[in-house]
């Protein structure tokens, strides 16, 4: 088995004949914090949607632990250990924070079909175990005091934390973060970086899209730069930072950071 957890091989995705991802390849090592950067509309989120099964790429292969996974339903991808957050926060906003995080325990719960109707002792044990795990995550993300508050009533920063806690509740091997620092203030961003490092130290591989360059450059160990759906550069932060192609892409486009 290769030492790569996730491999993207020559993947292309089209929308109505327009190319969104163009022959993209990249490899994520186990235990890495891997960053993807690029101007808005470069196809970064589309790539995440391909990896998590929401889109099926027209061309190429997505390989997870040595097995091809493109075309597999999103819920099966999650069962494989790939969990994500969303750029446009997607919480179950009327439900409480605890219930939101509990959704991450879904794949770890072993309740049977009849447990929806009749509760058994083993089911109650399973239920308690999963709620306690939710409690742990609420402590870790400092969300405990909002346990019963509807997620939709909370601030942007808190919602981003709930999304991350929800994904981590599923004990993923790979955590995909789509612009985790968007909308956060400076303090929150620093704290987020610390949290991401802690999560990685617990053995979770991280793949993230982020526009906050300071954060990406200090946090990520390897970076791929995408523009117009194609890879234009890759390497360690110090290399990418000085790559003239990258500078050109950022200055050439009129996007702010």
């Amino acid at each position, binding site marked *: 088995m290769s030492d790569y957890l996730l491999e993207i091989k020559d993947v292309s995705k089209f929308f109505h004949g327009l190319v969104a991802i163009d022959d993209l390849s990249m490899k994520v090592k186990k235990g890495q914090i891997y960053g993807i950067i690029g101007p808005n509309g470069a196809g970064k989120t589309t790539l995440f*949607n391909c990896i998590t099964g929401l889109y099926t790429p027209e061309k190429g292969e997505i390989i997870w632990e040595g097995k091809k996974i493109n075309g597999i339903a999103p819920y099966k991808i999650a069962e494989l250990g790939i969990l994500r957050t969303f750029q446009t926060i997607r919480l179950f906003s009327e439900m409480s924070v605890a219930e939101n995080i509990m959704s991450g325990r879904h794949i770890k719960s072993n309740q049977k079909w009849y447990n929806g109707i009749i509760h058994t002792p083993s089911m109650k044990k399973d239920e308690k175990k999963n709620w306690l795990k939710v409690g742990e995550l609420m402590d870790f993300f400092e969300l405990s005091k909002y346990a019963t508050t509807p997620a939709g009533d909370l601030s942007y920063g808190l919602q981003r934390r709930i999304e991350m806690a929800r994904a981590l509740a599923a004990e993923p091997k790979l955590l995909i973060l789509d612009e985790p620092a968007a909308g956060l203030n400076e303090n929150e961003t620093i704290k987020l970086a610390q949290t991401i490092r802690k999560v990685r130290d617990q053995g979770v591989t991280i793949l993230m899209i982020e526009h906050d360059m300071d954060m990406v450059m200090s946090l990520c160990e390897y970076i791929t730069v995408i523009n117009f759906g194609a890879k234009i550069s890759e390497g360690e932060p110090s290399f990418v930072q000085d790559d003239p192609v990258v500078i050109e892409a950022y200055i050439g486009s009129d996007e702010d950071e």
Partner: protein
Amino acid sequence: MDIFLQQLINGLTVGSLYALVALGYTMVYGVMKLINFAHGDLVALSAFAGLTIYVEIFGEGKNSLFVVLSVFVITALIIAFVGVLLERLAYRPLRTAPRLSAVVSALGASLVIQNSIMLIWGPNMKIFPSNLFPSTIWTLHGVVFTFTQVMIMGISALLMVGLYIFINKTKMGTAIRATAIDQDAAKLMGINVNRVIMTIFIIGSALGAVAGLFIGINYRGITFDMGWMYGLNAFVAAIMGGIGNIPGAMLGGILLGLFNAMISGYISSEWAETFTFVLLVVILIFRPTGILGETIAEKV
């Protein structure tokens, strides 16, 4: 072959009526994402209102072009007004509410209109006079078709072409299409969404009113609850064509009318609805958003 041609004529007649009513459903759905369950009852109301206007204002027996035209125009205006009122009172307050709340409100509005008809005109069937249109009948190779049928097909076709031009060539039509795609963006572009919605209710209700009058003239017996049956068929037609899609509603209406006529002609009218819904489910299994409906990947 005779049965086939005869049912073709009958099917096109019913299909034209379904299409006219389906347009009302599809336009409202396109812009508001709401099934206007009260639309069928507006069609029924039109038949009753038209009958009263004809008998009370012009007097039975008069059938000059002026009288017939006046009945159609006055009725269409009244129904359009009721349609606008319906939107103002039952739907506008719910525009930001959960989608299903508006559905319940629409069901409530349907009950209100249906029972108002019953309270005003009574629970029994009313009969349309037979002489509003000339009773001319043509026979061609054993196939019979009436003046009324020709009028229904002809006028419906004209109205649909007119609507198509309006939607695609005028400024208001462009505003309607833009609002259907993205209401918020349309608002930002300076489109008056309230006016767009009002226009849609005026056009949809007026088309439904024409259909209601045709139903009265062609089938003659009208009942307070007939809107349900026509409404449901027309709604199914709109779904088959791809709800929200204007050519889809026309196509779906004609298709369903023909299909119904063929089933009645060759199999049995007792099972008409069963076949209708089997056809619908089969279409939806293969085309989950209808024949002309576009599958737009949800933005994530």
